[in-house]
């Protein structure tokens, strides 16, 4: 007689221990908050505010009352000024912004590459296609990596999230 097939019991109704209302913010550090603010505003086109000394909050524009995104949820990046960067970051830890076209990516690359020194940037990579996106990366003066990215509508992160798993979640 063959041994009975056994299956691993599933955890009871998958208890969730933390009950978040939002993935609300990401954080990074800089040695020069003024330089980071200038990059975020004049280069990346983001809105910044310094609520206290040494802290910079960053979000996309348009969320102020009366503006097109007013009342919509948004993600905040929080930068803190430090004397030294204790843990330099690498490209796979980056922050990304979406632009509206492939041409906008190319235009951004040309301008950012030309003003690399003015913004105190490190390496500015050339745009390339990868996994359905057209994008390039650059690194700022504090080892923080940034991506300027364009995706077609069907390949937006939100579109892919709605599709659900396309690969077995249990596959290694």
């Amino acid at each position, binding site marked *: 007689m063959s041994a009975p097939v056994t299956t691993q019991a599933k955890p009871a109704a*998958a208890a969730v221990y933390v009950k978040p209302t939002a*993935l609300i913010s990401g954080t990074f550090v800089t040695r020069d908050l003024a330089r980071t603010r200038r990059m975020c505003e004049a280069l990346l086109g983001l809105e910044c505010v310094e609520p206290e000394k040494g802290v910079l909050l960053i979000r996309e524009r348009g969320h102020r009352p009366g503006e097109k995104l007013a009342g919509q949820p948004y993600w905040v990046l929080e930068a803190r000024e430090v004397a030294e960067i204790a843990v330099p970051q690498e490209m796979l830890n980056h922050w990304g912004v979406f632009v509206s076209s492939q041409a906008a990516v190319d235009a951004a690359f040309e301008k950012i590459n030309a003003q690399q020194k003015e913004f105190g940037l490190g390496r500015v990579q050339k745009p390339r296609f990868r996994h359905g996106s057209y994008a390039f990366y650059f690194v700022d003066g504090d080892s923080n990596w940034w991506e*300027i990215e364009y995706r077609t509508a069907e390949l937006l992160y939100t579109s892919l999230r709605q599709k659900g798993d396309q690969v077995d979640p249990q596959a290694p």
Partner: protein
Amino acid sequence: MTITSIVNPDLLSHGTLECSDTPATRRFLTEFLGIDVVRPLPEAQYLSKGGPWTVVCVRVDGEQKDQGPQNRFKLAVGNAAAVDDAHAAALRHKDDYGIRRIEGVEEKNGIRSFRLQDMNKVWWEIANLTQQHYDDAFARGDYKR
């Protein structure tokens, strides 16, 4: 005030983190942290919890580098008690989910929070934050120097 900039983005769209064991990482993210996760590609999972922004979890081979506690992701929970509950759960289930470090709960200006480092050396902060907290900060403008 109109600010001209080199890039005019539609969205601050994503952040990224690294993982090595995709299923184990997903179990921690969904069961412990309560984050929504989908896997569109063999090498990537997308993390979200409301809103159009996404954190992309990229599978890498070998040991991940330490991201450092100053580079972390913040999860908002509904109130201060939920922070304490999450902290207690982290201590209780540390070994189940491969949590490496759990810092103590702190409170500053009414925000209660703690940080933990997961199996992939990624740091998370759990705090009783709300969108209103940030709305107010942007509305107040810069501190007076």
